[in-house]
């Protein structure tokens, strides 16, 4: 589904990603871990097409098609979804209105009609139940005054609404309390299918107890320096990153 080859990216002429290779097949869950500042969020943003990051080399293929020249919204229309590490506030725009706009803009791009109001309503009801979100919450301004955990839960609500092909969850677990973590993880699991794929960026093994990865990758200094199965996450939890850093820096 997603094929990344020798991906290099810079910000303000500073190279952050230094040649990443990764292949993700439909139905798979990949976890990306790594120390602070290693480039995880950069990687997520580059896939989503954020302009501030300049992709200097390599390729990103989605379903066999190069997407690195596409605008972020075009990538979104093709099913790329990013759950932000720091969701952005949009005052005066309700969650509902935002979602309605997002869904209809996507449908428009796909040559479909707008979603009829009653279908929209049904979808909202279903997905807000899945994530145990109070309907009143959906009338509030997007992310404005939301607690850290509420923001993250809202990101996954949006993911549920948009039903993306490729979801990248950037530290969705940080800020969630224990119950919320379970609810959100459960939501993500329910949305999993053999046709979509998930990339989970996290610092903690705990999330991976719920969302069980097929592969775990360690990103360090802009490169994937180690890959393994889910047991790698356990090992990292126990031993930290020093042993990997030593291996790499040696």
């Amino acid at each position, binding site marked *: 589904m997603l094929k990344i080859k020798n991906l290099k990216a810079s910000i303000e002429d500073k190279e952050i990603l230094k040649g990443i290779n990764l292949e993700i097949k439909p139905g798979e869950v990949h976890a990306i871990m790594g120390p602070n500042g290693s480039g995880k969020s950069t990687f997520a943003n580059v896939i989503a097409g954020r302009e501030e990051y300049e992709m200097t080399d390599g390729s990103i293929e989605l379903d066999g098609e190069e997407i690195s020249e596409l605008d972020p919204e075009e990538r979104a229309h093709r099913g790329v979804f990013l759950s932000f590490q720091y969701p952005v506030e949009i005052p*005066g725009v309700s969650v509902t209105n935002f979602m309605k706009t997002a869904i209809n*803009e996507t449908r428009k791009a796909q040559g479909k009609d707008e979603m009829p109001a009653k279908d929209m309503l049904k979808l909202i009801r279903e997905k807000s139940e899945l994530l145990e979100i109070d309907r009143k919450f959906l009338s509030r301004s997007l992310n404005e005054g939301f607690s850290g955990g509420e923001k993250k839960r809202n990101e996954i609500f949006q993911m549920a609404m948009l039903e993306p092909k490729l979801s990248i969850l950037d530290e969705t677990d940080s800020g969630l309390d224990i119950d919320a973590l379970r609810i959100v993880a459960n939501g993500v699991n329910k949305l999993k299918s053999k046709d979509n794929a998930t990339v989970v960026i996290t610092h903690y093994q705990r999330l991976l107890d719920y969302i069980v990865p097929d592969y775990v990758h360690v990103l360090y200094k802009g490169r994937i320096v180690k890959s393994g199965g889910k047991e790698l996450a356990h090992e990292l939890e126990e031993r930290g990153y020093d042993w990997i850093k030593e291996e790499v820096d040696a």
Partner: protein
Amino acid sequence: MSKYTEEELKKELETKEYEYGFYTDIESDTIPVGLNEDVIKLISQKKNEPQWMTDWRLEAYKAFKDMVEPEWANVHYKKPDLQAISYYSAPNKKPKYESLDEVDPELLETFNKLGISLDEQKKLAGVAVDIVMDSVSVATTFKETLAEKGIIFCSISEAIQEHPELVKKYIGTVVPQKDNYYAALNSAVFSDGSFCYIPKGVRCPMELSTYFRINQAGTGQFERTLVIADEGSYVSYLEGCTAPSRDENQLHAAVVELIALDDAEIKYSTVQNWFPGDKEGKGGVFNFVTKRGLCEKNAKISWTQVETGSAVTWKYPSCVLKGDNSIGEFYSIAVTNNFQQADTGTKMVHLGKNTKSTIISKGISAGKSQNSYRGLVHVSPRAANARNFSQCDSLLMGNECGAHTFPYIENKNSSSRIEHEATTSKIGEDQIFYCNQRGIDTEKAIALIVNGFSKEVLNKLPMEFAVEAQKLLEISLEGSVG
């Protein structure tokens, strides 16, 4: 939102240029350019006005001659040559239509382009439309329904003929002839406008709506609007405008007077999208308007405005809170793009006890435009317990535009409470990217963010106007970011 909105929205988004930039070629009766006493007499004569009206105009002209164009506003423009303007232009045969078939097809075409064909309007339940096209009211609908309640809704020319006692009693009582340069000019040469009277205790059953339009090349438009809400009555009045594109600047100097007698309420909403000039700042309407309302005891006046058009705007809808316990409100969205300049705000003059005023102003600047809020809160010594709350928010797009806030407070009573809040923000790259990532392109993202920013004011508009207003916000900001 209705289906109309969404569909229209999409269509509008595809249009880049000012879409109402067309010109209707209807034969019209235009007097030669220039301004002098004879011209004023001629206007009055053409309109078959009584002597007192002619005298009133001449008195205004006398005052005007001694006045100079004000320069305190934060706008820069080439002063219009008042001698190069024709002060009267009326569609040739003043038609009285029995049915739409009799209407000049070109006129109908204009209405169609505006999306307000009479046909459509007739169906739009609850909206009576008095269309002012180039100064003379050419069609009025729903008059009978209103007449049953004793409501008078007609052109001011007609009111001068049919209800001289009301016009004579109230005209110039809120905005005197010599109030300011452009008000004096208007008083001397006003060609037409709307008149509305709501009798005691009557709640006007529908939104009263007027569409203004400047149509004849080179004719400035000087409307005069007078709304009187008698004791305990209520009316909601909508004013919307569009103008065709022109190369030379067109002057628009209107006067609106509102009178809310004891316990009455007037809601006055405006959507203004006159031609703002092109991307290079060429052309566009000069909009120098005086709008003021007078509140007697327990009365309330709300001004709501969405200003997206005109090259230069200079406008301060104000409330004189004369009666005890009266309330004044001002809700405003002003959008400037390209080379537009707007200096707008309000004056709340607290004279009575326990008077209250609220000011919510949202300024949105893009391109190389300049957007200023200028507001005065005046509390007189007699106005015990007066309250004011003002909030002025500015949203900037790009680095070449400007937002300015000039709040003036004159407080002469220590028991009053005045609060002022102001914020300035920018549309962030991170907000745009967040929207983009959800499949919303940049243009649409900006519209969404701007609508969110303006929401408090949009919510104050009557439903059908809110829809139009949102559309206008989008149109006027198109192409404003990369």
